[in-house]
């Protein structure tokens, strides 16, 4: 991953920063320039809740080359308490015991390595609570 591309994403990935539309309250994660609901261009920064629940998930057993050494790993769509949904790995779990509806907490983890000499890329994963 290009370093600049990774650095741009740090507020979202490290601090779960989203944009809240000042007019209609829509929460955009990641940040956007235009509100998809009311087309307003005025957002304030909001730090998302780190608590949520699993809406759906899968266990990736065949991955792209970059993630092939991690298989099997769980990826789910998690709905946070403020209603925002995100796609995240679900870590530290027996993948065969996952269920829809389980409560999770968002934690800070290493996500991927960009080659041998590349940057280490961090971000969020979910763990069961």
């Amino acid at each position: 991953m290009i370093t600049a591309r990774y650095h741009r994403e740090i507020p979202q990935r490290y601090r779960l920063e989203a944009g809240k539309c000042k007019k209609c309250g829509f929460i955009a994660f990641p940040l956007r320039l235009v509100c998809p609901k009311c087309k307003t261009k005025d957002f304030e920064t909001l730090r998302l809740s780190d608590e949520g629940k699993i809406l759906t998930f899968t266990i990736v057993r065949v991955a792209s080359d970059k993630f092939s050494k991690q298989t099997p790993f769980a990826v789910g769509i998690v709905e946070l308490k403020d209603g925002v949904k995100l796609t995240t790995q679900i870590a530290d779990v027996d993948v065969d015991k996952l269920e829809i509806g389980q409560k999770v907490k968002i934690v800070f983890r290493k996500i991927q390595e960009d080659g041998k000499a590349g940057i280490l890329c961090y971000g969020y994963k979910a763990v069961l609570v």
Partner: protein
Amino acid sequence: MRDVVVIGAGMTKFGELWDKSIKDIFVEASLKAIEDSGVDHLDSIYVGAMSSGLFVGQEHLGAILADYLGMNPVPATRVESACASGGAAFRQAYLEVASGASEIVLAGGVEKMNDGADVTEVLATAADQEYEVYQGITFPGLYAMIAKAHMHQYGTTREQLAAVAVKNHRNGSKNKNAQFGFEVTAEQVMKSTMVSDPLRLLDCSPVTDGGAAVIVASMDVAKKLNKNLVRVIASAQASDTIALHSRESLTTLNSVVKSAEKAYRMAGIKPMDLNLCEVHDCFTIAEIVVSEDLGFFEKGKGGEAVLNGLTSIESGKIPINTSGGLKSKGHPVGATGIAQIIELYEQLNGKAGSRQVKNARIGMAQNMGGSGASSVIHILEVK
């Protein structure tokens, strides 16, 4: 807008075409379509291709394919909407003829997926790179999450998913161009290698090389050439959030609902007026969800319908994926949307051989990009 007619079609065999390049594949399909139509020139060319840059390192496909087809200086443009690229290319050709700007346009699609790229990574570029793919999700993974949610919400079963593959392979076994033109049993599907729970290998469309092309023309041209009038009576497209997680529902594809509403309105028909439908069954769950979102079955009943045979060729209800679908025929991503049109063209001309739907008069093709961020629908009718 003028009437637009499909007057010719051609495709390559779908499969692992190791001895053919992307140019060979496109030219072979296009020459067949041109010959089938009987036209002596083209006014322009549109080519659907999802990711020739990453698959084979070749962009600027429009010009290079026009060159190898011997058609310089005809204008030629590549159209991209992920796996809906073929459908989108057909739509551009349709619009160009309908507007009166051109008389005869070639709409093609091509993909060369077997030349060594990491196919899983390339296909994943149709999802959100930073907020989906970054986490390691794959395309089977995204559809697996839809499947899991659908099973949880509506009680869709593993057997119902398998029934899609069984039906489509049965249809594909009657299609000489199919990559996997053999039958499979439900047991084989349910015992195949797990790819991304709950989707197994035989729930997934294969990695395919292939090309497909059709010639679209004005009614005047079609009548002069004394063609059967297979008319395009609807062309509609819609988009949705690229990220699956941003949608209100994980079990309804809003782009399909919206493009279908527009298409039915434009054609002046209802879902049950269709005699057959080619849908984007990149994974078995996709066919079930799309068959509901197109209005063939009540939401949540799509799995039950396929298991009960309501979508088979013989059913008389709504035959789905008579060609074998992406599942059995193969899924060269950019060519798929055009290959769907070709199946309608053959069915409506009564030339589908042993998989012919009796008295087929109106057919629909639904082509999808990503996890449903794009949907392109065309409805064709023969007079």
